[in-house]
C-alpha cells in the first residue's frame, strides 16, 4: 500500500515541460493547418462552381462518401 504524497505543491516547470511546450508548438502548427484547411474546404465549393457542398465531396477521389479525416498519420 502506497503512502500519501510527500507534498501537495505542484512541481515547478522543468526541462520536460519546456520540451513538451516546444513539441506542442509543432503539433499546434499541424492542428492549425488542419483547421485552416477545413475552413477553406467549407467555403471553396460555394465559391467555385457553386456545386456540391463540402460534406458531399469524397476524400482522395473515393467513389463513395468517406470521412475527410482518416487517421492516415497514425
Amino acid at each position, binding site marked *: 500500500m502506497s503512502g500519501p504524497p510527500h507534498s501537495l505543491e505542484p512541481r515547478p516547470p522543468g526541462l520536460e515541460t519546456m*520540451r513538451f511546450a*516546444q*513539441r506542442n*508548438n*509543432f*503539433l*499546434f*502548427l*499541424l*492542428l*492549425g*493547418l*488542419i*483547421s*485552416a484547411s*477545413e*475552413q*477553406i474546404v467549407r*467555403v*471553396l465549393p460555394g*465559391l*467555385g462552381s457553386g456545386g456540391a457542398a463540402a460534406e458531399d465531396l469524397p476524400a482522395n477521389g473515393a467513389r463513395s462518401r468517406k470521412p475527410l*479525416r482518416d*487517421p492516415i*498519420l*497514425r
Partner: protein
Amino acid sequence: MTTMVAIPKLVIRDPPPTPTDRLASALLGLGPLGALLGALAGPGDDAKKAVRNLIQSLIDEGRRYAETPEGRRWVSILGDSPLVNRGWLIWSRANIDYHLRNAEPFEDGPITMLESALRELATAEIEEILTQISQVAAGIAATSQAEAAENR
C-alpha cells in the same frame, strides 16, 4: 583676423523606397486580393515577418482548435505520431520558437485574409483588378524612370 569655417550639415534620411516597396504598398490598398499580393511582393524583411506572423497565427489557431471536439480527436491521433516526434526534433534543433519570439499573429486568425481574397477572386470584376494592378505597376515604372533621369 578670424576665419569662418563652414561646418558641413549631416542629414540622415531613410533610403528612398524601391519600386518593389512601392508596388507592395500600392497593392495593399487594392482590397484583400491586393493585400495578399502585396505581402508576397514586399521586400525581404516584410516577407520574412509575414511568414513568421502566419506560422504564429497557425500555432494559435491550432491551440484553439485543440479545445474543440474535432481538434481533440486530431490530438489523440497525432499526439504519439512518429511524424510529430520527428517534427519536434527538427523544430527544437532549429530553434524555431526563438525565431517566432517577436511574431505578431493576425488578430482575426490565419485564414481570414486568404478566405477574403478567395471571395473577392470569385466575385470581383477580374478585368478591373488586372487594370488596377497594371496602372499601379505603370505608375511606379514612370516614377522610377523620372527619378533616374533626375539623378543623372
